[in-house]
Structure formats: structure tokens, C-alpha cells
């Protein structure tokens, strides 16, 4: 008797993302799928528009990581118009981007995924949020989080024009430079960001690493997949969010390939399943072998842990120390533990802080030369950045006037879509045996996908601001025999 279990977020959006779990005749998990909503017609929407509009349009795909889309789009325009960005503009873009990565990672750790550990994986779901974190670590910590995020976002506002949807990126540079006063403020904020990142890592040490039970959950088999890993690296193979080469390592940590963003189609293909709108990217040279991990499967992962796995280290001193400590405790590199994404996110938060300070202290950011005017005839442009949730590709083709003929985006969460489905399946397998569904199913399955910080674009302003979860268990006649609602 086959049964179907649906973990369905009830939101204001019909057809929103959900998790479906299919059981076999014995009541054990045969398959599990992570589904996301389809936002229709972006390519068509883009066609016929001037390419210069794309850095303002693409951030509106999503209210969660607009700075990533804006920056990636601006870089794509640089490529499209074949124009070099002046050094000062490049540094200012990266400075703004570092502020964005910091505040987004802080949001995830304190508000979204981190509470699973700071408050505890067994804690009631109602406590696993920022309010639970404050109760556990104190009100002052809560104030620190809110204050430092606000200051980082103030940097984005100052440089980007707007915090939610920046408008500063132009082909060949940026629209606004940095004043001496701005720079002083950025330096002060950067220093405080570093301190806050260290405070967060210490918090992780004290609360998570000091608790054997939590460490066992992180390192346990239920949340482990041996996949390929992808991330942007600089010339020394160190993590870089803004620019560099895309590097992929195999499950043993050996370099599999390294390529420029222009060559992404030589290395990445997308698999389609009839049950999902989302595509499943995989490594072209290995091929799609189904939802399995291992060296023979083309499935790869992106985002914090993947970036660290795909690199040879961090480009800033304290982040490098944190990186080394993480791998020492996890038993070497690469680490395949999905829940270690939270830890890697904190290491990256420290890197973003240190990098921001480096850039703010660089006098070149005061240079007035912040843009080169494009003079070449456009045809095709490809750009890449590391978004908080992973590698983000933009690809535009235009006519000779720069009017979009075709646009293709591979967004971060899509890169992880196959791995997320595998993680959800593995968690469900551990919680569903012979038809018996453990009460912990929701928490454990949620933890599996939350580690990736998946971005469901249209959930950005769901009015209650929450995603309640419901599990429907169907019998072989597709009649609901049990419903579990987490409220």
C-alpha cells in the first residue's frame, strides 16, 4: 500500500513550495521531493527591455537577496558591453557586497536556521526563532544583532541608494563614489562587524560545540551527503564572493574543474522532473544519475559549506583560523555534513567583515574614477557572484542596441535543489519506519532544508510572515488518513 505524505507550507500563496514524501508498500520512504513555486515568464518579461534595466529588474525577482542579483547583473553588463570596471568601483561594489553577505548571514544565523542549535533541535518549534535565541543568550545579544545588521544595511543604503533594491550598479562601474566621511563610518562599522562575527562564533562554540548531543546531530549520518562542491575562488583558490573562477571539487576534495563564468554552460546542465517546476542542475561531464550522491553522481552543492569545501581557505586571517578550526573538529576536508552549513556561514560572516574593513581602509575607494563608459557593441554577457545561498549566474543575449533577446538565470537555490531533495529524503527515512511517522518529522525535515537557507522568492512578504507546516498522510486511495499541523 503506497502512501503519500505531504509537508505543505500553508501560505497566502496557493501552490507554494512543499515537501512530498512517498512511502512504499511497507510504509518506508521510497522518495521525497522538495518543490518550489513557479514564477512564470521572467525570460519573456526581460525580452525587449534594455539590458541596462536588468540590474534594477532582476533584484525584484526576490526580496531576500536583491543585492546579489543587482551585483551579478551589473557584472553581466560589464561583460555584455565589454567594459573594464575602474579599480575603485570594483572595490566599492565588493565593499557593498561584503556588507550584504554579512547582514544576510547574520539574519540566517540568528533568525532562521541558527535557532535550531542555539535554542536546540529538540526545543519546541515556537521557541526556535530570534525570540528563543534572546531568551537563551540574553537581551543584549538580541540588541547587538539588530544594531549591527542595521549598520551593515546602512552601508548598502549609502552605496546602493536603497537597501532593498540597490540601484548603483552600471555597466562599467557604479553611479556614486565614497566620501571621506562615508569611509570613516564604514571603517568603524567594519571593526564592529568583525567583533560581532567573533562573538557569534564564540556563541556557536559555547552553545553548540560544547554540547555533545548537538555535535552528534551535526556529524550524524542522517544529515550527510558526499557530493561535489562549487564556489568562486580568487587566484590563490581562496573564497571570494564577488569575483574569480568557479571551482568544483569532488567528494574527496580534489579539484574537478575550474572555469570562468563565460563557460558555465560547458560545465552545468539542468535536469527536469515532471513533478517539479524547479530544475536540477548537475555537472555535465558526469551526467545526471538520479537523486544519489557520490563521485559518480553529477549532483553538486553550493552555498557556505560548499564554498569552503571548494576553496583552499579564506583570504583574511581570522576567518582562516575559524576555517581551520571547523575542519579540524569536523574531521577534515571536505565536510559533507549538511548542518555544518550553519557553521560555515559564521566563518563566512567573519570573512565578509574582515574583507569589508580591508576595502574600507583602502584609500583607492576614494578615487573619483568610478566608471568607464561603454563604447563597444553588445551581444552576449555572462556574470557570476556568490550569493548567500550559493553561486548565481546571469546570462543575457542582446541585439546590437543592447535590447534583451534572451535572459537565463541560474539562481543559488536551484543549484542546491537536487541536494535539498536528497537531504529531505534522508531525514524522512530516519523518521518514518514501517508506516510509523515520528512526531519529530517536521522538525527534522525542516532542519534538513533550512540549513541550505533555500530562497522561495515569493515568500518574501507573506503577511503573517511565517510558513506553518502541515503533513498530510494519504492512503493508497489518496485519502488523507492523518494530518499533523505544527502551530
Amino acid at each position, binding site marked *: 500500500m503506497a502512501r503519500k505524505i505531504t509537508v505543505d507550507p500553508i501560505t497566502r500563496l496557493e501552490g507554494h513550495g512543499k515537501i512530498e514524501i512517498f512511502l512504499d508498500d511497507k510504509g518506508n520512504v521510497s522518495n521525497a521531493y522538495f518543490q518550489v513555486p513557479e514564477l512564470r515568464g521572467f525570460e519573456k518579461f526581460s525580452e525587449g527591455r534594455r539590458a541596462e534595466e536588468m540590474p534594477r529588474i532582476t533584484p525584484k525577482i526576490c526580496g531576500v537577496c536583491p543585492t546579489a542579483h543587482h551585483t551579478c547583473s551589473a557584472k553581466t553588463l560589464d561583460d555584455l558591453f565589454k567594459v573594464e570596471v575602474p579599480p575603485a568601483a570594483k572595490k566599492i561594489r565588493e565593499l557593498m557586497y561584503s556588507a550584504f553577505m554579512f547582514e544576510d548571514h547574520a539574519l540566517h544565523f540568528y533568525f*532562521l536556521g541558527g535557532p535550531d542549535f542555539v535554542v536546540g533541535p529538540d526545543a519546541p518549534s515556537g521557541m526556535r526563532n*530570534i525570540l528563543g535565541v534572546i531568551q537563551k543568550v540574553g537581551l543584549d545579544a538580541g540588541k547587538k544583532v539588530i544594531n549591527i545588521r542595521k549598520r551593515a544595511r546602512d552601508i548598502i543604503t549609502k552605496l546602493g541608494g536603497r537597501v532593498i533594491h540597490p540601484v548603483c550598479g552600471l555597466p562599467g562601474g557604479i553611479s556614486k563614489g565614497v566620501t571621506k566621511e562615508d569611509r570613516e563610518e564604514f571603517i568603524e562599522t567594519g571593526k564592529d562587524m568583525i567583533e560581532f562575527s567573533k562573538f557569534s562564533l564564540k556563541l556557536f562554540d559555547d552553545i553548540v560545540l560544547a554540547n555533545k548531543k548537538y555535535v552528534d546531530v551535526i556529524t550524524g549520518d542522517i544529515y550527510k551527503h558526499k557530493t561535489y562542491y562549487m564556489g568562486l575562488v580568487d587566484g590563490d583558490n581562496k573564497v571570494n564572493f564577488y569575483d574569480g573562477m568557479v571551482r568544483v571539487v569532488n567528494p574527496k576534495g580534489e579539484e574537478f574543474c575550474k572555469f570562468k563564468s563565460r563557460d558555465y554552460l560547458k560545465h552545468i546542465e539542468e535536469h527536469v522532473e515532471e513533478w517539479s517546476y524547479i530544475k536540477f542542475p548537475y555537472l555535465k561531464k558526469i551526467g545526471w544519475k538520479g537523486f544519489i550522491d557520490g563521485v559518480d553522481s553529477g549532483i553538486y552543492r553550493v552555498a557556505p559549506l560548499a564554498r569552503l569545501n571548494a576553496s583552499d581557505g579564506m583570504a583574511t586571517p581570522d576567518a582562516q583560523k575559524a576555517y581551520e578550526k571547523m575542519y579540524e573538529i569536523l574531521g577534515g576536508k571536505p565536510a559533507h555534513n549538511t548542518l555544518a552549513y550553519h557553521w560555515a556561514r559564521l566563518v563566512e560572516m567573519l570573512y565578509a567583515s574582515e574583507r569589508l574593513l580591508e576595502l574600507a581602509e583602502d584609500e583607492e575607494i576614494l578615487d573619483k574614477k568610478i566608471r568607464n563608459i561603454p563604447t563597444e557593441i553588445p551581444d552576449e554577457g555572462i556574470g557570476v557572484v556568490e550569493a548567500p545561498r550559493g553561486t548565481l549566474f546571469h546570462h543575457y543575449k542582446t541585439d546590437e542596441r543592447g535590447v534583451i533577446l534572451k535572459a537565463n538565470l541560474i539562481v543559488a537555490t536551484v543549484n542546491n535543489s537536487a541536494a535539498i531533495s536528497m537531504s529531505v529524503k534522508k531525514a524522512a527515512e530516519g523518521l518514518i519506519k514501517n508506516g510509523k511517522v515520528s512526531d519529530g518529522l517536521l522538525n527534522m525535515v525542516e532542519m534538513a532544508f533550512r540549513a541550505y537557507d533555500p530562497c522561495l522568492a515569493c515568500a518574501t512578504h507573506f503577511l503573517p510572515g511565517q510558513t506553518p507546516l502541515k503533513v498530510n498522510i494519504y492512503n493508497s486511495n489518496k485519502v488523507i488518513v492523518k494530518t499533523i499541523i505544527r502551530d
Partner: protein
Amino acid sequence: MIDDKKAEVLILGLGNPILSDDSVGLRVVDTLKEIINTKNNVDFYKVATSGIEILDIISGYKHLILIDVIKTGKDKIGTLTKHKISDFNNSIHLTNPHQLNLPSVIELANKTGIPVPEVIDIFTIEVEDIYTFSLECLPELKNKIPEIAKEILNKSGVLET
């Protein structure tokens, strides 16, 4: 963040301007701005986010009027519904992949001493398509926006402030 907060009332539209009917809340804010642009005690803001991200925006105001779209599939397209923040209390402590709910944001602000509006009115407008990229919304919604805007003014009492 709104740099020049001078008014006591904030009319805040939530929505994505390039996702068909999702833009309706933003369009209503535009219309309200035309209707009451002579009043200097009202600020207007439109944004495509929510949760903790709106804390900076709403902080400092006494009265928040929040306008968003909703798709329940139960009400007629264009139906305006007024909610109080307490309507969402039943989900106050849920976690989700991306955000806090509004009551939790208010609770967080209260705990950390961030001033938030004393009065919060939430309006939702029933819509149909929030998945297709388009600058246009349904014509029937577009035509109804002036009526919806006036209804919001009546129900929020903002003209009397």
C-alpha cells in the same frame, strides 16, 4: 529605511511591482498618496519584503497602515479585508525558512526597546495571479483601486488624524 520620518502615520505597501497582481498593494499606496498628498502627517512607502526587514521602516511611527495582497481563493477578486495584528497571533512563534511573522517582529522590537507603532491596521486585497512576471495586474483590480483606496481611508480613520 525612511530617512525623513516626520509624520505620525505610515502607509506601507507590500508587494512585488513586476509580479502581476502582487503589485496591487503598491498601486493602492500610489492612489492614496494622490488622495491625501496635502496632508503632512502621513508618510508613504512601498517595499517588497517583510518580517524583520520592515522593522527599520515602521519604527518611529505611531500608526501603521499596512497594505498587501492575499490569495485565499475564497473571496471575490478585489475584496478588501481589514485585520488586526492579533489576527496573526496564532502563528506568533512559528519559525520558517525565511522570516519572522509580524507579531513576532513587534514583540522583538518591544523587548529590545525599538519604538513601533501603537496602532497597526492590516489590509489585504484578494487577488488572482501572483506568479507571472508582468507589470500589469488584472484590469478588474486596476479599475477597483480608487474604491479600495477610499475604503482603506474610511476603515483606518487616517483622514481624521
